[in-house]
């Protein structure tokens, strides 16, 4: 089985992990309550989608 020959330096580890980033989700304002929400998804704040009540809040 292939095994690493050398210990990976902290520098190399940290350089690798510095490329590991989260991206901010694109949010849109809710039509009814103006809270930011994900697009094409019912608003988790007021529970509406296209002004239709979908979830009980």
């Amino acid at each position, binding site marked *: 089985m292939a095994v690493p020959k050398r210990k990976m330096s902290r520098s190399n580890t940290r350089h690798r992990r510095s490329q590991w980033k989260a991206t901010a989700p694109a949010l849109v304002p809710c039509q009814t309550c103006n809270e930011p929400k*994900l697009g*094409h*998804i*019912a608003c*988790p704040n007021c529970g509406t*989608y296209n002004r*239709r009540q*979908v*979830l009980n809040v």
Partner: protein
Amino acid sequence: MPTPTKGPRLGGSPAHERRIMANLATQLFEHGRITTTEAKAKRLRPLAEKLITKAKRGDLHARRTVLQTITDKSVVHTLFEEIGPRYENRPGGYTRITKIGPRRGDNAPMAVIELVEALTVQQSAVGEAEAATKRSAADAEAAPQDAAPEDAKPADAEA
């Protein structure tokens, strides 16, 4: 021919997928709206709508065909007595899927699938009017093609 569903079966095996779909359909007709994952909701929609079409037909053969999928007789009864007649003048599109975002725990995208309301008299009138406009528009498109050669001949004669 319908396009086969891509990807692996829900639940692992074909038999498990059939049971999952049958259970989801039963629960949908029992409660009117259910919360499930987007993938399951999308697979459930065609099955549920076909069952409702069978319920609209309402004869014994249709009932026996539906009973092969939904084995709960009381649910089949409500499907044939209440849900089928409700959609008498709605030409398909009996369910609505609304996405409700990722689930806590495994981040699975969730959705609500529900039976839509019966068409109101006003809505069905609007639907018929739109269909009539479409038909007349199609006739109008077809008519000039018939008329065009007749127009062309006199023009040639004058030239």
